[in-house]
């Protein structure tokens, strides 16, 4: 869902799971440990979904279940997007390169929650009425950008496997997966416009700030040192 692993440069971009010599110091994490961390993050990322199931079975969706579940899945899409986008800057700051091993999973969780968010709107809110849905997309900017963000996520999720990385080739795959930047911005815009009618920008501002920092960090690094590894290849 995000950029493939570019550093250390000796790791083949085309083989996402290629074994690499373990770097020294804090960055080191044995493969077994990485698996444990991955499992933990997997469970954590699934908790919002399990919570919705539990609330559903307990009849605790509240007065407006569709609104509650739609907003919850929307929120978690954004959280997972932020987590995905945070991997590269965090890795760069800490030198913990194993963080990159979490990125695909986090990206797919973002898609997982976005899919629920989209399907609720399509199936329940629009009642599978495609004409109604198209009208909604055309007429309402906040739906337009939300739908665009979701549509952009589909090819990223579809090309998330190692086989697809190989088939596309690292450079093209990376180019495609930069769409996550647009997805994050569109997602924020979707949320922002949704809240605009009530002038209620408290929560969305926090997400916007996080996304801004995560994207600005990339812009800063790119400007300081225009992609040395990629250029050398």
């Amino acid at each position, binding site marked *: 869902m995000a950029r493939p692993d570019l550093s250390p440069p000796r790791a083949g971009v085309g083989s996402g799971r290629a074994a690499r010599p373990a770097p020294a110091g804090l960055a080191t994490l044995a493969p077994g440990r990485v698996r444990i961390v991955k499992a933990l993050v997997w469970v954590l990322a699934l*908790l919002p979904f399990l919570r919705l199931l539990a*609330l559903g079975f307990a009849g605790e969706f509240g007065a407006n279940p569709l609104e509650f579940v739609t907003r919850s899945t929307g929120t978690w899409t954004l959280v997972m997007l932020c987590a995905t986008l945070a991997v590269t800057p965090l890795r760069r700051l800490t030198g913990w390169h194993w963080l990159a091993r979490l990125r695909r999973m986090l990206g797919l969780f973002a898609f997982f929650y976005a899919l629920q968010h989209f399907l609720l709107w399509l199936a329940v809110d629009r009642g599978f009425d495609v004409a109604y849905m198209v009208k909604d997309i055309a007429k309402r900017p906040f739906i337009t950008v939300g739908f665009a963000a979701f549509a952009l996520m589909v090819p990223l999720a579809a090309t998330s496997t190692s086989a697809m990385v190989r088939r596309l080739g690292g450079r093209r795959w990376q180019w495609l997966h930069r769409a996550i930047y647009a997805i994050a911005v569109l997602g924020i815009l979707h949320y922002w416009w949704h809240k605009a009618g009530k002038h209620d920008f408290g929560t969305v501002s926090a997400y916007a700030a996080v996304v801004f920092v995560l994207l600005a960090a990339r812009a800063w690094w790119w400007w300081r040192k225009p992609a040395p590894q990629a250029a050398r290849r």
Partner: protein
Amino acid sequence: MLIPSPKWLRGGDIAASEITPRSVFESRRRLMALAAAGAAGSTLAPWFARSALAQAPRGRKLAAAPNNAYVVPEKRTPYEDVTTYNNFYEFGTDKSDPAHNAGTLRTRPWQVAVEGLVKKPRVYDIDELLRLMPLEERVYRMRCVEGWSMVIPWSGYSLAELIRRVEPQSGAKYVEFVTLADKKQMPGLGSRVLDWPYTEGLRMDEAMHPLTLLAFGLYGEVLPNQNGAPVRVVVPWKYGFKSAKSIVRIRFVDQQPSTSWNLAAAQEYGFYSNVNPDVDHPRWSQATERRIGEDKSGGGFSALFAPKRKTLPFNGYAPQVASLYQGMDLRKFF
């Protein structure tokens, strides 16, 4: 494991002996919620069980005789939903905020100034206002501009009764309602979502219409604070935000008063704001609505997947009020 499933997943030919008794079903549900919460650690428990937060003491009884001329023959929205799912921004913008925060509102002593272009302006004490007329119970539909609706039994009397007593002058064309704005009692006033105090308004004929209710209670009890205690108006053919809550001033004026939501977003919220399925909100359709608390038979999922219902012109009150707008372009005067 037997998982209680929503109605639409259940087969139609289940033997009675197969059906899990309700009490077992309920306790099993609780067990499942508990198990999930336990596994996730006690800090997550509130996150996994939302309704525990919503329980509030019920209000004092308020005697009101049912007026069957004003009873919508539809299932009433459960008290719990009516009192925990509110838009009352003086107490926060989240739907659950008013139920959590409105405890700080002091409804006694309380005065309502009735003033402006009237022959007998007066400051009414709330208890005096309450005794002005015998209270009647009316069951109205309530349609929120956000696309959801409820059916609520209100206690009150026609606002017209009060208006007649203060004798409006001939120049009085509109009525303005002003909600209390006290930072000490209303934590939401710190936000700049709206210009406080909240003001709403009606045309004189709308305010005088017998449907327009001055309400003091719901479900036979004193209005909970989050529902606009101690006194509010209820204008059932208009979107909910037109029905001002916790009113401290009723002013009769000759010009169309500026109203809070119209000031905040004029292209989205007009002065009239009559419920109209044909005039969309700029950001969503108004053709359909979600009835709150209508289907709770199969846990949360049947309500989640419940179909919407069609929104009716003037919220179903067209026979009574459509004539007020004869000759008006309702797309222009939305």
